[in-house]
């Protein structure tokens, strides 16, 4: 039986080899040559994907069904993660943070996504017809090329109660309750990081929308102006609908960014998500289970990883399907 299987595989590989070498030497029918070339180009990529994507993903899913001692626990790790106050902590709500990693990731999406997307769009629009705007765009885009871990460390100083730019600004304008260290308080920590990240991420949406604006024929705007259409209506009826492909890209990439946010939070706080765990996120929770916990609990970490991947996949598929349909 085993011999038969080996012979089968060997035969298949031989056929593959013949087709590829035939295609490369120009032998056989044009159709066979085409098929051979396809295989020749497709196989290395497929092998790489199998090795570096499919295998780790499947292994991670497999590990998520086992506990730290290697015993099969079914969905136990998922139950443990979703039932943990580290993930959802709304007992006694309304209450001060922490609210748990899942809620915090949702807050990231709720605040960071619209702010960075519309701020980028607004910047792209207002900087479209201004000389010297490339300097401003470059300055804004610097945030995008800054490593997020460095961004996190910069937040330490931007929000520092003693020397931080943001607390000093609010202190100077008389809002003394915000003239304190933002990262030292559970109520301001998460918002501070989100707003700081908007500053870093807005460059992405601005550049994508700027590129999108160059693809819209300016005659559309000119015609609208001749017809006496208001600026707002021109935006809602012409500009924004024509930027839909860009919006899909920005929306999807931003959601992925917000779901897998890790390095910014880690750099600005600690492996627990800062004061009282107020800025804890799913990726940090996964990191903790795998690399801080003693002994490491890879099962729980894999469960968080799988859960995070599912969320990411769902969000991406739903967004793309919804926006493409419309």
């Amino acid at each position, binding site marked *: 039986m085993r011999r038969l299987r080996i012979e089968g595989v060997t035969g298949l590989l031989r056929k593959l080899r013949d087709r590829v070498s035939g295609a490369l030497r120009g032998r056989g029918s044009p159709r066979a040559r085409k098929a051979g070339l396809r295989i020749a180009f497709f196989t290395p990529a497929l092998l790489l994907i199998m090795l570096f994507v499919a295998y780790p993903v499947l292994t991670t899913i497999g590990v998520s069904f086992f506990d730290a001692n290697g015993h099969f626990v079914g969905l136990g790790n998922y139950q443990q993660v979703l039932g943990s106050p580290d993930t959802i902590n709304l007992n006694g709500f309304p209450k*001060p943070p922490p609210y748990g990693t899942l809620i915090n990731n949702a807050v990231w999406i709720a*605040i960071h996504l619209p*702010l960075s997307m519309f*701020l980028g769009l607004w*910047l792209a629009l*207002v*900087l479209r*017809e*201004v*000389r*010297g*705007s490339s300097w*401003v765009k470059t300055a804004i885009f610097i945030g995008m090329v800054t490593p997020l871990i460095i961004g996190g460390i910069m937040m*330490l*100083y931007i929000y*520092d*109660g*003693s*020397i931080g730019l*943001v607390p000093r*600004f*609010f*202190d100077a304008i008389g*809002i003394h*309750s*915000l*003239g*304190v*260290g933002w990262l*030292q*308080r*559970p*109520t*301001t920590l998460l*918002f*501070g990081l989100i*707003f700081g990240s*908007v*500053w870093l991420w807005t460059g992405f949406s601005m550049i994508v929308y700027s590129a999108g604006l160059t693809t819209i024929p*300016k*005659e559309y*705007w*000119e015609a609208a*102006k001749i017809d006496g259409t208001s600026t707002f209506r021109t935006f809602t009826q012409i500009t924004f609908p024509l930027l839909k492909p860009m919006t899909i890209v920005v929306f999807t990439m931003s959601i992925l960014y917000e779901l897998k946010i890790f390095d910014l939070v880690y750099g600005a*706080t*600690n*492996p*627990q998500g*800062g*004061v*009282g*765990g*107020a800025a804890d996120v799913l990726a940090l929770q996964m990191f*903790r*289970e795998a*690399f*801080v*916990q*003693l*002994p490491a609990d890879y099962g729980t970490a894999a469960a968080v990883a799988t859960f995070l991947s599912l969320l990411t996949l769902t969000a991406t598929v739903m967004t793309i399907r919804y926006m493409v349909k419309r």
Partner: protein
Amino acid sequence: MAGSSVGEGAPGESTERYRPPSGRSKLIIIVVALLVVTNVVTGLTAFYLAQPPVAVTPLCGTGASVRSASVSTSGDIGASGDASPVFTVHFAPPYRTTQATITLIGPWAGSEFDHFKPVLENFTTSTGIPVTYQQMRQEQLQQVLPADFATQTAPGDVIFMISSFIKANGPQHMIKVNANISDSDFLPGSLDPVKVGSDIYGGVYTGKVKPGFWYRKSFFQAHNLTVPTTYAEFKSLLVTISKIKGIRTPIVSGDSVGWPLSDVTEHFIATYGGASMHRALTNGTKRWTDTDVRAVFADRLVPLLAGGCFSEPLEWNTVALANWWGGLHALYFMGSWITGLVDNATDLGVFSLPPPTGTTTGIVFGGDYFFVPKYTTHQTEALILLKYLASKDGQTIQVKQGGHIATALGVPLSDYPTVDRGVAQLMNGVVILSDLDDTIGGTFQTNFWSQLQLLWVSPNQLDSVLAAIQAKMPAS
């Protein structure tokens, strides 16, 4: 569209290259508007979502919501090795050798590494074994080592690592060193954090003491301040300091990921709960929510926090250090390594919290631990280095450089720089304790730090903080 060419060519067709209008003033307005809008949005959101500060009776002048000092531009701070880049240095003996080169991984860089260099130079010269020193932070190692161990490899032959990691992984992945080092050669209890039963899985190098509150002697002299001998005197000292012009808060709270706050807290526990309470909490035989543990927090630490005696947590080796050295705060709780971070260590003085009568108090001593992985290919040479680092000879060279306290017995007091000698003397008559959160390690440690950060800014949440700390205690 201003400046457009409509009407100049065929309908619907632009014949001229589009030239945008000059809009410098528009650009300035946009930039200003952007700054204002982002700040106002940020501020309003945080303002309405932030909880109001707790109303308290201030002990130290300004209350719990006191703001910290403006930045000090004092240039007196010496170099810190904390943020130095990863680097590798090779040490070879000054003569031809056939011995294999071994790799030592340690946490030190910058000036701290400069102080460690003579130790390794002496080793290679006396043994002929070349050493490659590679700097790697222990947080990095915590991520790298499990994967290496799983593939039965190791990044170095001798590796400095936190004791809780050595204890957790020793039996599986590290060489037992009972034959190479002995308990009797060290300060009592120094090797306990790397023991599993009676098996020893690592060595202990020099360590750092967390003796108490550091002050500038010149500041105390200028304001006629004296070191307190009772808790009442300590509180009175804080009140006096808070009234000095230019002082923002009497004590500055250092912070980073949270360990400086845990060091202060441990000092309060070891002094007012005693060495036995500290050990019981470390072993897990006492709960954080027990009445006597809560009392240490509620009666000693929380009133000082709520009374505005501590600043809010500031980055420990930049802002906090500069503010304290620049005279915006008078006291700074830090380990003995602070002597290497200031320009003029002879101006430093230190005192421990005044102990209550009848309590056996302790001082936390954080040793630097190292191990030899089972997967080393140079076991003999690695064990020679391990033995040397743990020896009186190796440690004597290190303590002479300053900032370190020997764990090996027999290092004469005369070999310490003056300021370290004072620290070493503070250890007389008190019980030496292992660092609580380093010993327990794991997610307890990171959670402990986060909860203390919360307590520092919301002292009214004491009970929920203690419950959260207890919740992450590992099952014993």
